[in-house]
């Protein structure tokens, strides 16, 4: 074994790790910045001193309500929900080895959203009840999709198509539930059809935070196993991964995260789908995408919500912004994958 090879290998690894650390740091700083801006800026501008005071628990006239009650829970929910969607999305994309097999495209988000809309509008349940409904629905949809696409093994193309079909069905169910609401509330509709942070309070945020403390460590513990599974079930098993166990753990965690976030904000369009590919582009091909995707998701939602609120005359819910930005990216990705003769 030549020392030059060893040096080259070590050097390459160090370089890639350094790039990763730089990217993660930049992303984190970006999130902190976006978070701070969300708290400070708005119809009234509050300087950092006031904001910090409110967070510390002091009573600052004016700021306590606006920052503490309105902006803070909204910003926190944006960051947490974004992380949940990002994690959920990248997990599915990695597991199914297909960027198009994102939970918001194959109907899992639609299922959670339909269940949540039903729970809120028709059953009028409280936050916990809604979250439970959403997670059960999400898992049920995942199971149904998996079972239906299983025919001598799961084929990616079939799974994605069946997911699209189920998503269409669930979306129309959601539309129906909403149309039956006592009063037609466009805001509510927007929330359940594309995702919105309007009216976010601590009541919505806390369940998401709690769910994350359980599910995120669970997911991260499978980081290495997921990386192995990217190379195919057989190769992963040959490298000592317990494939079925990993698959179930990871899917349950991912669906759980998506369901809890959807119960709080609705299915914020395309975040789950975009976070993974964007993270892959900036972090580079090596290394796990879980944490980067979570960070990208947070940043996306924070930024999109800010844009939706203040960039235009009308206030757009965050889902519309991510939808308008995300869909062209999806098409671009399709074009790029198709042109490269990629695997779909």
């Amino acid at each position, binding site marked *: *074994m030549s020392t030059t090879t060893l040096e080259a290998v070590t050097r390459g690894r160090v370089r890639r790790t350094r790039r990763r650390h730089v990217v993660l740091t930049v992303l984190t700083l970006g999130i902190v910045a976006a978070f701070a801006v969300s708290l400070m800026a708005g119809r009234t501008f509050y300087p950092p001193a006031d904001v910090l005071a409110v967070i510390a628990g002091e009573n600052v006239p004016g700021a306590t309500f606006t920052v503490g009650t309105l902006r803070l829970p909204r910003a926190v929910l944006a960051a947490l929900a974004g992380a949940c969607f990002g994690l959920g999305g990248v997990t599915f994309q990695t597991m199914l080895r297909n960027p198009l097999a994102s939970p918001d495209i194959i109907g899992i988000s639609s299922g959670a959203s339909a269940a949540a809309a039903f729970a809120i509008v028709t059953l009028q349940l409280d936050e916990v009840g809604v979250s439970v409904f959403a997670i059960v629905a999400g898992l049920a949809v995942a199971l149904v999709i998996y079972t239906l696409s299983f025919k001598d093994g799961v084929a990616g193309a079939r799974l994605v198509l069946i997911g699209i079909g189920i998503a269409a069905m669930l979306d129309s169910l959601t539309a129906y539930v909403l149309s039956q609401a006592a009063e037609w509330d466009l805001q509510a509709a927007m929330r359940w059809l594309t995702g919105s942070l309007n009216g976010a309070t601590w009541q919505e945020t806390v369940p998401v935070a709690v769910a994350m403390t359980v599910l995120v460590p669970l997911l991260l513990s499978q980081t290495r196993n997921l990386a192995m599974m990217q190379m195919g079930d057989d190769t992963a098993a040959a490298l000592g991964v317990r494939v079925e166990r990993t698959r179930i753990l990871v899917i349950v965690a991912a669906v759980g995260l998506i369901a809890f976030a959807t119960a709080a904000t609705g299915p914020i369009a395309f975040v789950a789908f975009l976070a993974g590919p964007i993270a892959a582009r900036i972090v580079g091909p090596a290394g796990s995408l879980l944490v980067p995707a979570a960070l990208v998701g947070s940043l996306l939602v924070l930024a999109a919500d800010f844009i939706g609120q203040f960039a235009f005359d009308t206030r757009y819910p965050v889902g519309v912004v991510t939808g308008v930005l995300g869909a062209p990216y999806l098409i671009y990705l399709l074009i790029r994958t198709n042109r490269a003769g990629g695997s779909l």
Partner: protein
Amino acid sequence: MTTTHTLAVEHLTLGYADRVVIDSLDLAVPPGRITAIVGANACGKSTLLRSMSRLLAPRGGHVLLDGKQVHRLPAKQLARTLGLLPQAPTAPEGITVADLVGRGRNPHQRVFSRWSSEDDAAVAAALDATQTAELADRSVDELSGGQRQRVWIAMALAQQTDLLLLDEPTTFLDVSHQVEVLDLLTDLNLTRGTTIVMVLHDLNLAARYADHLVALAGGRLYAAGEPAQVLTQECVRTVFGLESQVITDPTSGKPLMLPIGRHHVTTGAQTGVGVSVGG
């Protein structure tokens, strides 16, 4: 690598759904040698290999590693002793050679352990052994078929196993790359004493490169032993349903199978069975 592990199957029966693919097979893999498994398509070669590496649970019988049942061993421990290169493995998009080879270190890493210099050394050694060192920073997608296969073998090498199983490592490669890969495997066997078991579709390459040739037919063992003993006209007829003439390859001294069809058969061809000879 001084330890030699023994791999054997005993009365092994394998199947999918309602089909039985391998029927009560007994096979012992000679340690430290190169074994090649041949047979017609869908005769169960890949299934057998997958079962030997624990990817498929047996319906009956056992797969024994050092006398212990393979299916009872913990996954990572097995992965440190036995490496498998499946058919058509998929590389994540954009991954570099060095990273892919590095994935082979997984069985040696605990859940939260960091990458160690030992891991780096193993990767470097694997790259050197497969002569892929200069490709280390390149993306696997850009490589040629032969290069990519060498990189996959490097990954299996980084696992540092005593046994290496390969499922059709030369299919889809053009002839120069096929020879490249088989020569590499022979190097590994000679320098490190790695026991190699490979499924090959090319009978002649199998006969040339194997120390031990195993022929499967109809889910059962037809013959196993030295290529010169196993590769006979009778074998080719039974296992592949093909008339042939078996001569000694002047370039390697190993048996060479010449297929005999309906056309282009000279009068000198020795078929042993009444085949009408014509141009």
